[in-house]
């Protein structure tokens, strides 16, 4: 348990988006998505789904669902407002910083764990491109989150393996905390680690 009063350090914009989230998905609407992306997990405490409609290589419309805290709800809501109308490329590189800025800031510790909207959006675009047999020129340019709970990305792991800071999975765990919350990322991390070891040191 902890003290929550101190946490109402949310900006008025965050509060507004939390109380009146925009563009949430609802059954009755029969939203027909061209791409669907999902990130996070219930075990991590934040899970998010983004559905997009694409027209002329733009995000024509967007709906989302989330299980998460106030800042997860508010940041996804804000993401939806920013993303609608963007070209797919713009949307792909919509950063968490940009979302946070538009919200008028988030408490420091909220930034890392709860701003997942951009990642879900990216996953939705990936899905759209894949479904339509289109090339995905951007995927290799962005870091992929392997451990959602601790927000450990493939790029981060690559650096640690390359520099030999992490020579075993145990060391990697110590350095990044991956796998210490829900644990679901362990197999994937082990695989990635093996591949990288192979790539750099064998």
């Amino acid at each position: 348990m902890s003290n929550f009063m101190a946490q109402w350090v949310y900006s008025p914009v965050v509060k507004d988006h939390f109380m009146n989230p925009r563009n949430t998905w609802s059954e009755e609407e029969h939203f027909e998505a061209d791409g669907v992306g999902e990130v996070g997990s219930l075990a991590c405490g934040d899970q998010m789904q983004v559905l997009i409609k694409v027209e002329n290589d733009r995000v024509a419309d967007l709906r989302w669902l989330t299980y998460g805290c106030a800042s997860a709800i508010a940041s996804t809501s804000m993401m939806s407002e920013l993303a609608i109308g963007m070209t797919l490329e713009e949307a792909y590189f919509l950063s968490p910083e940009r979302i946070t800025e538009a919200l008028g800031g988030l408490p420091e510790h909220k930034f890392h764990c709860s701003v997942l909207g951009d990642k879900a959006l990216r996953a939705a675009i990936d899905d759209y491109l894949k479904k339509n047999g289109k090339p995905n020129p951007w995927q290799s340019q962005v870091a992929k989150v392997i451990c959602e709970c601790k927000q450990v990305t493939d790029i981060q792991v690559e650096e640690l393996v390359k520099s030999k800071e992490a020579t075993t999975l145990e060391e990697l765990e110590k350095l990044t905390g991956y796998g210490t919350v829900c644990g679901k990322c362990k197999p994937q991390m082990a695989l990635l680690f093996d591949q990288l070891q192979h790539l750099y040191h064998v």
Partner: protein
Amino acid sequence: MEQTIIYLDNNATTPLHEDVIAAMNRANELYGNASSMHAMGREAMEAIEESRQAVRDLIDAPEGSIVFTSGASEANNTVFNLFRERIDLGSKRNRIVTTTIEHPSIIEMVAHLRELGYTIDLCPVDHTGRVVMEEMEKLMGDDVALVSVMLGNNEIGTIQPVKEIALLAHHHGAYVHTDATQAIGKIPVSMEELGVDYLSLSAHKFYGPKGIGVLAIRKGVPFAPFFHGGHQEGGKRAGTYNNTAIVGMGVAARIAREELEEESARLWKLREMLREGIEASIPNVVVNGSRDYCLPGTLDVSFPRAEGESILLYLDLEGIMVSTGSACASGSLEPSYVLLASGVDIELAHGSIRFSFGRYNTEDEVHYVLEKLPPIIKRLREMSIR
């Protein structure tokens, strides 16, 4: 329009009782240093001794056992520190046993001591948060110095079989401490009956002031002060007496004792009203903790597919104050260790809300909560991933 405020976070802290406020206002005049020999000092000391007696009566503690501290955290730390000192001095009893669901002032002390190399075992609890006695038995031995088990849990309200544990531990020659902070004023607490050697409590959990508490120490058991530097409390705890707070605690203790039976029944009734109401109006909820061994005013509920911090903040907007075991609210990623230790699923832990009642809550307030809560859960679930 006046904003409704429904305070259901009494396990976190309680408001001051009006009689406590009045007594403390008067006690502010008692500026004499209670350790001084002159009239002003004696007057302050008299008030302090009166409070000491009131606390002693409240917990049915042996003569000469009450030592004032800044609260239960200090009292808990004092006990662990004193056994650490004994271990340092070469005691053959060099192991401490406690549980996985203690208050952070013990859990974090344990982590710290372990880092320094001390051996501390944590007894697991069952799915209701109760100590598993067979496991406790397995942890006993002639190398155990101290067994520390809280009486009532702050988060899920589970009451521990402290009396049985004390018997068992004493049988193996270990000393026994209980953190009774949450139980005071809610269930009868008798140090004699429990048979423990050390007991911690804090005034602000029973309508007394913050920053004052007690460590009760049975005569003849080991002791070493945590604070050095004065002869107050027979050398057991240095520091000038906080006259006002001690007087406030004394009054709170007297009221808690006088009204215990009635208050306990009232809290349980409110708790059950809310529990039944929630179960009747919201599908798919899980009540955490123990049905049979529960502090009367505590209700901890998990709402699958609705996240705790969001529930808390939506309730806050309606003027209802609760707390949550959700990780998000604490700024960490791990949800409540108490729930996880009780084998509660991690997802359920994220969606847990603690309602804790106190003397100023009413049935009308329960109705108000039952009106506001279901739509909040429904709304969050609609927004949540299926």
